[in-house]
């Protein structure tokens, strides 16, 4: 029998090949054909069975035959009562979990009434300044029965405290509260850029939350280790894989140094991937990620609990792939990306709406996005068999290639002394900026195509209906915050803030004092101000 090389030389090259670069979206070169020669690992050690080490084929034994992924659409805008209405709409449409988008002031640790919040209140997400907003947000939604994801990072400690105190006020014990808080600060310095203090104290706060949830709210996921923002900032798929897993290793190390048993907290760590348009590359990335995490957790930390080794993940289709031009095309992009997510074995997913490059999505657009997932789940049949592409030569070769390339990055980061140090010297930041610039250049040279943008474009006006945020609501929220501050017990507020500051200094876990503070109407901005005073403020080094 011929070797692959012989086939290439004798047969393939007799045919035509178009003069284009055959590469993935992340610019990995792709061969015309893959054969058993291209797959190095053996079945047992590299693939194994679903629900078994190294989990390449899936973290759960029965995968979607046992339970479909959670369809979790991210939502948030305006005042808490506006988002509360959208939440109840989504639950009524058959969505299983909630996912909260906060506005920029809340995400950056400012009260709605702060001068830096002008023009941004309720615009990109919901405005939550105090426990009263959290109460409005979950009005008539039983916290004990839904799982809630909160996308918030540098001010996550305050928001988690508000959610737990709101649970308490609904009569739900913390042990029964389930959900996820993003709380991945390392990727903030690398990509999303929402921060308050420098990286080292930020990781201390994250570790406090891991410790606190492990002991007090064991069904809550205290960190969602996120590649999404790394990818959206312009990284390649391999960089997304490498930097995200390196971030995860840094949190695990920090937890272990805190004195926690790795098997007590690692099972509650979860991940969050971006699902871009290169179909096979994305599926390979999801599979490679599971294998890498399982191996690293076992080898580096001696984790024994199988749940510590499982990379369970949320995924979102790639916001950056959506185009303002011919926006209906986005429905197709999202469908293909979502299918890759499912074939890659994700545990929950958000599908973007067609109008999201332009503004927050309308209800109609959100429904199409959710229906896309329901069609994949209930019409296409891809859920019938587990990891249906597993064993395919191309997918396995690509999975191995991505793992090897990502491990090379992790080795470099180890040599730099770990992710905290790599961030200090701007290593991942520059790698991403470089990749983003390269992609932009390829786009402008026509090496890469975006349909409707650099090819097949038409003269057009943006035809779709957009959701507008009423500017008057900012004023209403500001007045509400001012009134609340006038009416609360200022002695209790001062004492609570003093306790938080003291915990910052003496190293005790911050979460208990923060919970007490939010019970006393202390705001997200006030807690963040304590961080600013105690830990200092991080400034963007502005690497280009």
């Amino acid at each position, binding site marked *: 029998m011929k070797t692959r090389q012989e086939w290439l030389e004798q047969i393939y090259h007799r045919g035509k090949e178009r003069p284009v670069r055959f590469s993935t979206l992340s610019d990995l070169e792709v061969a015309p054909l893959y054969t058993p020669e291209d797959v190095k690992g053996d079945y047992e050690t590299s693939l194994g069975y679903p629900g078994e080490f190294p989990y390449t084929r899936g973290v759960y034994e029965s995968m979607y035959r046992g339970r479909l992924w959670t369809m979790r659409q991210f939502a948030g805008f305006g005042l808490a009562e506006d988002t509360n209405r959208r939440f109840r709409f989504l639950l009524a449409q058959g969505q299983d979990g909630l996912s909260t988008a906060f506005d*920029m*002031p809340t*995400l*950056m640790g*400012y009260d709605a009434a702060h001068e*830096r*919040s*002008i*023009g*941004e209140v309720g*615009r*990109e997400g919901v405005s939550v300044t105090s426990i009263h907003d959290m109460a409005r947000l979950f009005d008539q939604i039983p916290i004990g029965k839904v799982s809630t994801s909160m996308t918030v990072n540098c001010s996550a400690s305050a928001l988690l405290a508000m959610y737990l105190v709101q649970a308490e006020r609904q009569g739900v014990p913390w042990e029964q509260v389930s959900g996820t808080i993003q709380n991945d600060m390392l990727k*903030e310095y690398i*990509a*999303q*850029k*929402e921060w308050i203090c420098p990286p080292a104290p930020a990781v201390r706060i994250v570790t406090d939350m891991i410790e606190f949830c492990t002991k007090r709210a064991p069904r809550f996921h205290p960190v969602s280790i996120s590649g999404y923002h790394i990818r*959206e*900032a*312009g990284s390649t798929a391999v960089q997304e894989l490498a930097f995200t897993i390196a971030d995860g290793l840094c949190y695990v190390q920090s937890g272990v140094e805190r004195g926690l048993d790795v098997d007590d907290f690692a099972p509650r760590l979860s991940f969050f991937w971006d699902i871009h348009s290169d179909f096979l590359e994305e599926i390979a990335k999801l599979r490679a990620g599971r294998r890498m995490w399982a191996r690293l957790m076992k080898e580096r930390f001696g984790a024994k609990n199988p749940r510590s080794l499982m990379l369970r993940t949320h995924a979102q289709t790639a916001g*950056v792939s959506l*185009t*303002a*031009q011919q926006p209906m095309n986005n429905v197709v992009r999202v469908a293909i990306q979502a299918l890759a997510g499912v074939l890659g074995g994700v545990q929950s997913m958000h599908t973007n709406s067609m109008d999201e*490059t*332009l*503004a927050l999505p309308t209800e109609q657009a959100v429904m199409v996005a959710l229906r896309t997932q329901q069609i994949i789940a209930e019409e296409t049949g891809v859920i019938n068999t587990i990891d249906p592409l597993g064993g395919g030569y191309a997918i396995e070769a690509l999975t191995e290639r991505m793992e090897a390339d990502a491990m090379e990055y992790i080795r470099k980061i180890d040599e730099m002394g770990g992710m905290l140090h790599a961030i200090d010297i701007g290593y991942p930041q520059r790698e991403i*900026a470089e990749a*983003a*610039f390269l992609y*932009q250049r390829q*786009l*402008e040279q026509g090496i890469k195509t975006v349909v409707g*943008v*650099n090819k097949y474009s038409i003269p057009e*006006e*943006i035809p779709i209906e*957009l959701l507008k*945020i009423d500017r008057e609501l900012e004023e209403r929220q500001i007045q509400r915050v001012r009134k609340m501050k006038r009416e609360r017990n200022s002695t209790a507020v001062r004492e609570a803030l003093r306790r938080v500051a003291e915990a910052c200094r003496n190293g005790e876990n911050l979460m208990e004092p923060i919970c007490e503070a939010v019970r006393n109407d202390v705001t997200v901005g006030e807690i963040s101000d304590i961080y600013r005073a105690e830990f200092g403020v991080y*400034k*963007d*080094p*502005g*690497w*280009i």
Partner: protein
Amino acid sequence: MAEKRLRVLVAKPGLDGHDRGAKIIARALRDGGFEVIYTGLHQTPEMIAEAAVQEDVDAVGLSILSGAHMTLFPEVIRLLTERGAGDVAVFGGGIIPDEDSAKLKQLGVTAVFTPGASTEDIVKWVRENVRPRE
């Protein structure tokens, strides 16, 4: 006399961290032969106007993806004028609907680029439309 290189401040106002576009533009302008100063993230309009004056730039490019463009652009222009730098060309880009774009131009924003604009278009625009300040 050697021609003075145009100086451009690329600024990222607002609280959001969407700096992918700003960084690509900064780099493309630098590669296009301009002096580029990038402010980094989370700038207030005051910080931007101050940096523009301190750095004696000929143009300020604002990248705004948070939806706050109707507040931020006019404020930067007002503060530049207040500091005697009203002749600095202010341009920008981001997710900006057509109707807002028209209003911004009336308010003195010289060009508004939206998603899909190429770095080449922007470099060309700066080359053809920005003049050194007296």
